[in-house]
């Protein structure tokens, strides 16, 4: 196990990364009745992915999510958001809340607000996949370094 951090970090990451991911999904699911929303939840979900990449290293993390999967989900989130917006034409126009025309739900309950919940989920997918893909791409740069081993890291302290 040359890649990644020490076993303490790995076990801690193994223990808490699932809880972080569930909390991100919760933040997105209750985005229309409490603080949070699709973007905040997606960032928290991507933070779990970043934790996995940092603790276990890039090659282990790519067994869970690869850059091409991230691209796919990124595009799928944007496409689903567009689909939700276009479905509004069934009850009048672009971005019209067509679910609220059927049943409004009760203020403060989970199933209320119509398409806002669905839109938040689409944003969750897009943001989480986009951020995780961006971090994977950034972590790839170091591996491709031409002479990364013999470079002396010098902090640019003003002398």
């Amino acid at each position: 196990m040359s890649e990644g951090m020490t076993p303490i970090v790995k076990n801690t990451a193994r223990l808490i990364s699932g809880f972080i991911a569930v909390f991100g999904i919760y933040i997105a699911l209750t985005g229309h009745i409490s603080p949070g929303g699709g973007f905040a939840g997606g960032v928290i979900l991507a933070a779990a992915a970043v934790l996995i990449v940092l603790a276990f290293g890039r090659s282990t993390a790519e067994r869970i999510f690869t850059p091409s999967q991230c691209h796919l989900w990124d595009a799928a989130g944007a496409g689903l958001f567009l689909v939700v917006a276009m479905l509004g034409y069934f009850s009048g126009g672009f971005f019209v809340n067509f679910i609220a025309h059927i049943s409004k739900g009760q203020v403060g309950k989970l199933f209320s607000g119509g398409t806002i919940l669905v839109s938040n989920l689409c944003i969750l997918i897009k943001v989480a996949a986009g951020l995780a893909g961006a971090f994977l791409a950034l972590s790839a740069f170091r591996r491709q370094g031409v002479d990364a081993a013999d470079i002396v890291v010098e902090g640019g302290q003003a002398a």
Partner: protein
Amino acid sequence: MSTGIYILAFAVLLAGLYAMVAKKNIVKIIVGLLAIDYALNLMLVLVGYREVVRAGCRESGLPPILAEGQTPAQLAAMAVDPLPQAMVLTSIVIGLGLTALMVAMGIRLYERYGTFDTNRIRRLRG
């Protein structure tokens, strides 16, 4: 109370400006730019903040979320302005994209020159 936080936002902005102007390390310059970004976000949220009169005494405004059994008029009387908060959310997203771009450029520079010191990143190389 909010005057103190305005001063805090200005102090964070000055600290970020100092890091951008005086430091030579590219990572520190990026962190300085981010500090300025967050100082501006904090100031924009503070613009929408207000104190409300509730039960005869002045209190801080509530978050603009409609609670159960509350009319919109009741909420509008007690909540802070939600518009700057929505704008700051956009600003945070833009800052995130900017961060990713700057970090990617910094990594490319490090690969090319083997240093983060801007004094040594001068000549064309390779």
